[in-house]
């Protein structure tokens, strides 16, 4: 399965229309999307507006590839499950989110080798056509970096670090 998720707050029609069209053209019956509230509804691929956290996790752990917006909920969920992830950032200028921060997130995490990025629909189709090349990235640790954990722990217990 390909699991498509665009978060829950704001629709991301550009991504959904692209994936829906791709699935129809390629007769792919193995695509499912969580589309969020108030957006365009796909005509070909099955979808849910919102999944409860438990079902979201089930869909995620069963899929072969996660396709999503460049939101950290989507990205961290995929990384924690060691799933390959392909993101298309929402664009501020297109009204898909309040600013262009998803472009920054996508660029930085791509540079760190954490995610595959499609910056537009053409790149998205290219990646989807060659999806067997999208492999899981190195699994991430279950928790934050030790230095961050230590910093917070020391702060809570009134110890300051130099």
């Amino acid at each position, binding site marked *: 399965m390909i699991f498509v998720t665009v978060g829950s707050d704001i629709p991301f029609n550009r991504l959904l229309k692209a994936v829906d069209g791709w699935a129809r053209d390629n007769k792919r019956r193995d695509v499912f999307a969580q589309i969020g509230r108030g957006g365009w509804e796909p005509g070909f691929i099955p979808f849910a507006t919102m999944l409860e956290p438990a079902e979201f996790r089930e869909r995620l752990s069963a899929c072969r590839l996660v396709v999503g917006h460049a*939101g950290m909920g989507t990205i961290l969920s995929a990384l924690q499950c060691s799933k390959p992830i392909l993101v298309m950032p929402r664009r501020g200028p297109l009204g898909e989110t309040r600013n262009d921060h998803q*472009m920054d997130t996508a660029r930085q995490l791509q540079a*760190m080798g954490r995610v595959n990025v499609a910056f537009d629909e053409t790149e998205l189709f290219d990646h989807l056509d060659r999806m067997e090349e999208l492999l899981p990235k190195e699994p*991430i640790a279950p928790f*934050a970096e030790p230095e961050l954990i230590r910093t917070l722990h020391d702060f809570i217990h009134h110890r300051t670090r130099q």
Partner: protein
Amino acid sequence: MISTTALMSGKRPKVLAISSGGGHWIQLLRLRPAFEGCKVVYATVKDGYRVDVGEEADFRVIRNANRWSKTDLIRSALGIIALILSVRPDVVITTGAAPGYFAVRIGKLLGARVVWLDSVANAGELSMSGRKAGSFVDLWLTQWPHLARDKGPACHGSVL
């Protein structure tokens, strides 16, 4: 002060770990080892997230808000005032967004020590709430080294 009393009496510090949903919540969960030895109250915007912390954890649901709806913002803020008055945390930690901002603001007013950890999503600039929180939080953190400043947020690693 609550925290000094707690320390002197050898009690475990009480931490309120609070955020909105989605990525903010997942990032908050990835900080859990930092709360070892503490009494932790988790608060977020959906009851469905309870499974993430387990049945035995102290888990509260708060009303979500974003800055586009004034009514929601006010309701969310009132709920958070009630939450903080009932929990009386020594420390409030948040990864954002709007509910987290209210929690550190109100927590600070009510005598807690407060931490803002800006979301890892903000890789190009600090979030707007993150910038505002900087003026009063006790520990102000970004997750990106290139956004750390001498008089601005510090970077001590990320949730990744």
